[in-house]
């Protein structure tokens, strides 16, 4: 349930800040590896080629091809794709750990690609810090000194950086392990150190590069919840790279799905699952338990009668279908979707089943298929089912 709450708060913040400049704004970004990489993005003939053909023609590999997106303040922006899809290259381009071939990146409106060395260091030191898949900890330093490392290279004095590091170490739940070396920690603990190191410099954006892929499933879940908790508490903007669809759906306010260097779909988890942009995405999300991602807003239809609009358990529009199923099953009547006391529509068991079965038409806000005949429900327990989340 954490995910739902986090999504709620984040969406709220995202909408309120949507008017401002995005934290990261990426436009037409290309990263091509290989000889004379520069010519590829500029040549429309080459950009049209499939990856294999491009390699045989030019010897180049396009890891990121013409990617554009904005990361809004306070949101968790997930870039998801299989290995080789270019997602890790993409996130490294954001702070120029890998130099992009062409395109535009702006952080708070400031051009990143035009930054000189000192300015770029400033960006890396204060504005965006990264958590890595393989942790990247310094094995010869204690946990505390690893966490304080970012502050140390900024020139912060020893006692101050240590006290700040100590706070962050406590925040990620590693009290008492300050003096250990990374080699003495488990994978999950090491990644907590990595997370603490990134947090210690108090960056504007946290970049995660598949941070939990190397961890056991149970520990991975713990760490995901840790990230959700941190995001809820601090509302920090995050860019999260993953190859795990469930992780993406759990954490992401918005997801960019990448394939062969391109973004094939960008949208909320619900949009991705509910209306896949193409067969590739559809195949990708086929196994997803849709009722846990889709909200009643997409499943509802206009009330057929006034009576229907007045009766039945009330649910909020952001409630997932699986929760609505619970309400409907308990009362036996269609549920009303209520926002601010206004009834937006109703969801009945057929519509909910349609979502679960994947036959529901999708994101369309109004139901389209022929309305099934509604058996009037029995005694509705409006109080019991009407708890709005």
């Amino acid at each position, binding site marked *: 349930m954490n995910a739902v709450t986090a999504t709620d708060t984040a969406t709220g913040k995202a909408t309120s800040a949507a008017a401002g400049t995005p934290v990261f704004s990426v436009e037409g970004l290309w990263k091509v590896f290989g000889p004379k990489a520069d010519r590829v993005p500029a040549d429309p003939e080459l950009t049209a080629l499939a990856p294999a053909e491009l390699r045989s023609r030019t010897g180049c590999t396009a890891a990121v091809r013409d990617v554009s997106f904005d990361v809004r303040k306070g949101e968790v922006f997930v870039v998801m794709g299989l290995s080789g899809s270019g997602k890790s290259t993409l996130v490294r381009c954001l*702070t120029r*750990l890998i130099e992009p071939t062409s395109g535009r990146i702006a952080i708070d409106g400031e051009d990143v690609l035009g930054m000189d060395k000192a300015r*770029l*260091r*400033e*960006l*890396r*030191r*204060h504005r965006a*810090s*990264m958590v*890595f*898949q*393989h*942790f*990247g*900890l*310094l*094995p*010869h*330093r*204690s946990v505390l*000194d690893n966490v304080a*490392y*970012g502050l*140390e*290279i*900024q020139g912060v004095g020893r006692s101050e950086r240590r006290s700040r590091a100590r706070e962050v170490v406590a925040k990620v739940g590693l009290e008492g392990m300050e*003096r*250990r*070396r990374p*080699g*003495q920690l488990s994978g999950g603990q090491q990644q907590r150190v*990595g997370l603490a*190191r990134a947090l210690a*410099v108090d960056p504007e954006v946290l970049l995660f590069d598949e941070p939990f892929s190397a961890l056991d499933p149970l520990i991975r879940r713990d760490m995901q919840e840790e990230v959700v908790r941190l995001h809820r508490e601090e509302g920090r903007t995050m860019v999260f790279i993953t190859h795990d669809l469930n992780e993406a759906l759990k954490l992401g306010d918005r997801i960019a799905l990448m394939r062969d260097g391109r973004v094939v779909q960008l949208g909320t988890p619900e949009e991705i699952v509910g209306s896949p942009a193409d067969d590739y995405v559809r195949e990708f999300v086929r196994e997803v338990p849709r009722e846990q991602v889709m909200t009643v807003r997409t499943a509802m239809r206009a009330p057929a009668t006034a009576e229907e609009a007045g009766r039945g358990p009330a649910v909020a529009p952001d409630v997932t279908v699986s929760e609505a199923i619970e309400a409907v099953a308990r009362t036996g009547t269609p549920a009303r979707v209520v926002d601010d006391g206004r009834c937006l529509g109703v969801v009945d068991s057929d519509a909910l089943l349609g979502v679960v079965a994947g036959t529901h038409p999708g994101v369309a806000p109004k139901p389209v298929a022929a309305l099934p005949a509604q058996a009037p429900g029995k005694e509705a327990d409006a109080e019991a089912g009407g708890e709005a989340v």
Partner: protein
Amino acid sequence: MAAVTAPTVRAGLPGLLRRRALAKLALLALAAAVIVPVVTARWASGSWPDALTVDLSEPLGRASDWIIDNRDSHPLFLYFLGHVSNAVVLCVRAVYLVLLAAGWAGVTAAAALVAWRVAGVRLALGTALAFLACGLLGMWVPTMQTLALMAVAVLASVVLGALLGLAAGLSDRTYRALRPVLDTMQVLPAFAYLLPVVLVFGIGVPAAVLATVVYAAPPMARLTALGLRGADPGVLEAVASLGATARQRLVTARLPLARKELLLGLNQTIMMALSMAVIASVIGAGGLGDRVYQALASVDVGAALAAGIPIVLLAVVLDRVTGAAGRRLGGDGPEISGRRSALLWGGSAVLAVAVAVAVRLAGRPEWPEAWTVNIAEPVNRAVDWMTAHLYSGVPYLGGTADWAGHFTTWVLDPLRSGLQGLPWWSVLFIVATLAWLIGTWRTALTAVLAMAATGVLGVWEPSLDTLSQVLAAVAVTLVLGFATGIAAARSDRVERLLRPVLDVFQTMPQFVYLIPVVALFGVGRAPAVAAALVYALPAVVRITAQGLRQVDPAALEAARSLGATGAQQLRQVQLPLARPALLLAVNQGVVLVLAVVIIGGLVGGGALGYDVVFGLAQGDLATGLVAGVAIVCLGLVLDRVTQPTERRAKKGA
């Protein structure tokens, strides 16, 4: 040695590779068919034709004369080399005086305390005992001389090596340029370095120190570069992502990440410096090596042993202490508080000074004469007894001298005359074939050119003589080494028994091995071969055992599950999979054997090693230099012929 490796090579080769090998052979045969008639038509002799020889002795002799004449007047010597030479002498002298001033007690206390701080109580005790033993054997002063020379040489080697390694670690171009040079320097016998420095500096301490520096710096440079380049890219990226500058990246991440390699480099440099400081006695290094050298020259085994034992003790102590320090600093133990460590170091220093002052006040800084034990006499008596009873005429067994004689008559002589009887071009083709089959066409070309160079220099015959000794020694080494290695890999008990022996044997300087073989076999070619065998065997055993033990256990388990017998597992799984390790063992065996066969020139091994010694002893630098170059060439040939495509980290001693 080809006969030994061939089966494993074939077993491990997939069809494609075998076909490629056939293609190479066909190509070589074709080349031979074209070249041989032409060559035989022009120079019909079986040995290297005089027409293809360049006599370098005259120009070299003139160059050497010129240097001797101008050493005190030419600006190059006055303003550069002279200063280098003086600085070296001054440094060694200063260290030596400090060691003498500290007295035997001060030095022993300081060494033990350092060992305690970096390596623990047990090694501290061992260090103290080792130093006391040096004194007990009456070798305190030569030990200090050797130590002083080594200290200066090690310091210079470490600085030079670290700087070169830093350059090669940070710049790809430097690395590409430096690596082949360092690789080659590490396979060359120590003797090859002596002549050039003597040519420039003359016999004496500066030449000895510089030869030691040149010999000992490569491992430091190599390992520094390796460590810097091998740093975990993930960590470096993380460091960069936090906005570290290039200098911060080097100081806070790359160097600390490379600390294991740096310490290993230090360890290897120290061991090689000791090895060379002892050998450099033939160019005036003085100290322990000189005692051994003088004693060997008069076949005084007892005196040689009295000086040899301190060398071994020094080697073992230095190796264990630096090795333990490396493990300690490289480990993942909890953080050690800086203040406590500084306090303990300070305390140790104060204690050492206190001991030194106390003994000085007591008026006996020198090792007391009464405390020395003369082992030379009893040892010589034992050797005399051995000469009388074991050399020959032991019923059924024969005797050591008989064995040596038989080995010389039945193995070394036929091999030498066989090699020298082969037409010179066929030797070149054999070298080309072997090198190309195992390596690439580049290694083959280098090998052939190097082999031809020995002929051009006019030392074809002595080179083949040395080669015959090397081949004989390598063959025996590989047979014994592989057998022992397989035994050690298959039985934990054998491995446990062997490990301490191998540890000690691998740390001893090459020079020391000459002492026991002279005691057992007298002088001649057979003892040189025996010394080479003993020196190279530990490395071969160790590499073989490690290679076999590192074979993928899953593959072995699969074979076992299919019902393979022990012999089948060994033949069909372990040996083919361990092929790279076995090839490396051959390569190492050859390189190490060559190093000692050359030194065998000091105990009657003859051939190239003798030319070097003769050149040094008679002041005939031209002969020595030519032999030195031929040694370099032979080293290149042997290394390239056996060079597996991928090279691994090398044994340092």
